[in-house]
């Protein structure tokens, strides 16, 4: 028996999940060596296939050209089985004895309604681990509520804790709770695999994304229980040291983040900015005093930072031991030299004709004993129907043809709307977004200025 190359080799995952949290959970397991089979339906594929298509091109099989879908579903095999049919559900049940893990993030009624809830699947395979990653969990008065990451910002207490002083609550800018749930889900599955080794039994994991989000305000929950105090919305400021926040630099829309933690850093900041008047002001000589005068301090500091280029100022302050970071936009992050040195992005060909896409790591940690799977393509819809159904269930050509003819499996989507209408709907109105100010063009020709290495990276595939 050859030595394993990755921790989860030999583990088979059926991934019914869609959008973000569930697919990322399953992708992490796949990157760690598990064999992941993504289950979609011919009449209902993962909605991420509609988002952020390469070059905004909605022609042909656009559903196989989404950047989002690629990032969250690479290195998986894909089958499209109509779970609304008894025959489709029977196929899944027949697979159950050969599966180690099931990942899903539907609202709690869905899988049991399909006859694919944990109780039914565990009868077929007592070693099965099933993780349900719904918005509010499988039980409780909110369990039937639909949710996505940004909606959970509100109900978990995070939004109420955020915003400018005296201003309204604010959502996080980037739906943290989705990837947080995905990573937590992968952790939960791996913990359950360790338990299974000891007990011989699988289990059902009821992961509530809402409860995950509450962990962000866990300290505030303790505080409220002790003192009755709600967290104050304080913008970007700290509650104990100052100055901290975003400060404008030279050039439109250019900012730097600063966080001064002690008096030595305060002196270094003033010295770098040549802000003698600030350094010499005794009444700014302690964190408490600077906190009390934060509004005034921000205004005065901004006059100094506004004279400096943000990256140059960041490097100068870091050299003095002051926490400083230029605010980078998305394209700048893709081009960041530090991330390039750490191989954060791998080039993958997406779609037909192939277009290179910088797929990003789902495993930011670097392990000395093994490497995650290299980036590979996400599956086209139903791409591996034949392969998987033959391999796992021993179906022959005749059976496969029948299933295809009856629409129980497929590789072409069935839309509720005429396909041309569908194409129009999902083609993004980029110029309109530019006009209202939510985005700006990256370059006149829309290119991002990135390029793959000499050879486009080719993954092993799932």
């Amino acid at each position, binding site marked *: 028996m050859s030595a394993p*190359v990755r921790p989860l*080799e030999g*583990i088979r995952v059926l991934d019914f999940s869609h959008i*973000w949290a569930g697919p990322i959970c399953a992708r992490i397991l796949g990157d*760690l060596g598990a064999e992941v089979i993504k289950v979609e339906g011919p009449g209902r594929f993962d909605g991420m296939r509609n988002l952020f*298509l390469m070059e*905004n091109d909605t022609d042909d099989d656009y559903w196989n050209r989404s950047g989002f879908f690629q990032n969250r579903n690479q290195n998986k095999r894909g089958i499209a089985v109509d779970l609304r049919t008894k025959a489709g559900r029977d196929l899944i049940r027949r697979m159950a004895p050969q599966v180690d893990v099931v990942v899903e993030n539907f609202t709690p009624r869905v899988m049991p309604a399909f006859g694919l809830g944990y109780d039914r699947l565990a009868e077929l395979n007592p070693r099965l681990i099933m993780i349900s990653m719904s918005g509010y969990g499988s039980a*409780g*008065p909110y369990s039937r509520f*639909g949710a996505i990451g*940004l909606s959970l910002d*509100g*109900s978990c*207490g995070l939004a109420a804790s955020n*915003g*400018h002083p005296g201003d*309204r609550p604010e959502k996080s*800018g*980037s*739906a*943290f709770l989705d*990837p947080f749930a995905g990573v*937590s889900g992968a*952790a*939960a599955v791996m913990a359950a695999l360790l338990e299974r*080794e*000891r007990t011989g039994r699988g289990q059902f*994991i009821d*992961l509530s994304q809402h409860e995950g989000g*509450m*962990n962000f305000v*866990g*300290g505030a*929950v*303790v505080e409220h229980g002790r003192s009755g105090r709600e967290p104050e919305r304080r913008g970007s400021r700290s*509650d*104990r040291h100052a100055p901290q*926040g*975003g400060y404008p630099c030279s050039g439109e829309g250019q900012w730097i983040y600063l966080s001064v933690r002690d008096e030595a850093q305060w002196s270094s900041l003033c010295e770098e900015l040549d802000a003698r008047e600030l350094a010499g002001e005794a009444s700014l000589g302690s*964190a408490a005093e600077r906190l009390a005068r934060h509004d005034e301090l921000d205004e005065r500091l901004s006059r100094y930072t506004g004279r400096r280029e943000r990256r140059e100022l960041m490097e100068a302050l*870091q050299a003095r031991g002051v*926490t400083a*970071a230029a605010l*980078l936009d*998305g394209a700048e992050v*893709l081009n960041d*030299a*530090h991330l390039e040195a*750490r191989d954060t992005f791998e080039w993958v060909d997406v779609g037909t004709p192939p277009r290179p896409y910088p797929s*990003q790591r789902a495993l*930011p*940690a670097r*392990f000395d004993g093994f490497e995650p799977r290299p980036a590979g393509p996400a599956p086209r819809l139903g791409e591996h129907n034949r392969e998987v159904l033959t391999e796992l269930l021993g179906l022959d050509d005749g059976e496969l043809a029948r299933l295809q003819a009856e629409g129980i499996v497929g590789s072409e989507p069935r839309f509720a709307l005429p396909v041309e209408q569908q194409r129009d709907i999902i083609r*993004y109105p980029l110029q309109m*977004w530019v006009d*209202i*100010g*939510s*985005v700006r063009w*990256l370059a006149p020709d829309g290119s991002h200025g990135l390029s793959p290495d000499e050879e486009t990276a080719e993954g092993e595939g799932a």
Partner: protein
Amino acid sequence: MAATADGDEGVSPGMPAWAPPSWEQLTVVQVGDGTAAAFAGRLFVELGCRVILVERPGERADLEAGSPESGAASGRSSTFTYLNWAKLGIVLDYAREEGVDLLARLAKSADVLIRPPLAAAMEERWRTLGIDVARERGLVELVISPFGEPGPDAGPYADPERPWTADAGAALALSGMLYTTGDPAKPPLLTQPEVAAHATAAEAAMSVLAALNWRMRTGRGSHIDLSMHDAAVAFDEYNLVLPATVGVVRQRFYSRIIQGYPSDIFRCRDGWLVVLGSVNFQEMSLLIGRPDLLDDRLFADRNYRTEHWQEVQALLAPWFLEHDRDEVVARAQELRLMISPVMRVGELAEHPHVRERQAVRRERDALGEVRLVAPPFRLGSWRPRHEPAPLEGEHTVQILTAIARAEQGDAEAAP
């Protein structure tokens, strides 16, 4: 056992190289009070592991200095209590050689070590203390740093001559998220509290569990290098996918999802609501009692609605102001609209959903009742832990005595 996609067969489930014990028999050493390490350690506490918090003398006082939280003066602030519940606590100065040596002895008796990078001279010493041998025997060592462990190929922010410093805010700044958060007419808005540190902690716990699975298969431990900056970037797909696919860069625009309006927080009569545009947004016309608008372009056409978002806002805002939060949420869910309440922290523990799921439990420490949020996941083996967060150095003698006895061959004395 299924064949792997690589064609190799994995280790048979009947023959692990390392048989994982019960969680109670696993020891995790968490070095330092940083939020990422502390929250990762908390996740292992909630699995049932023994977690030992190692602090430098005065580290906790520095952490708590100036904190407005209850209990800060006694070294048990609310956040510290939450993050370090049920841990054992020792003090040892790992900035000095004697401390590093002791830390190594402690690490060799543990299964998992979560630590920050040490000062350069101490890192050099660390490498001579047999930790590599311990890793061969199964120790999982995870180093959490701002930008990755320093090294010649580690990237400009991790230059070994002068590695950069960062906190959760800096990680968000360099990952693209801070640039896009908040109102365009105001400074960028940091999402609090320390969300990048929580993201890093989740990555840390997940990575350690991956390494324990690796140990199960190979018998070997791991060294893991985890950067807070990398963790923040891994969480920020949204800002990165846009330039890479459609050639636009997301701007700071009210923290909204750009492809459909609304994606806003609205004031209602007794609080606030998160209102998101969903595929059946037309039903919003029914919610606000305007069925005549069901087929109006503002409700039926996502792009038109996004372009004319001020008109939508002007229609919805007055209606929400006249209605109570929970009433709106209940009705919205019936219509399958994505509207959720903005809950105050003080509401969480008493909310019916949270109570039924026992997602906040009540414990006690010397300061009184402690309300603890449930971990992000609970396995079937989960049991509540009742031990309070440790006082500084509370278990130093106990732990170090146990190490000494274990090294002398007392198998039952392992800390």
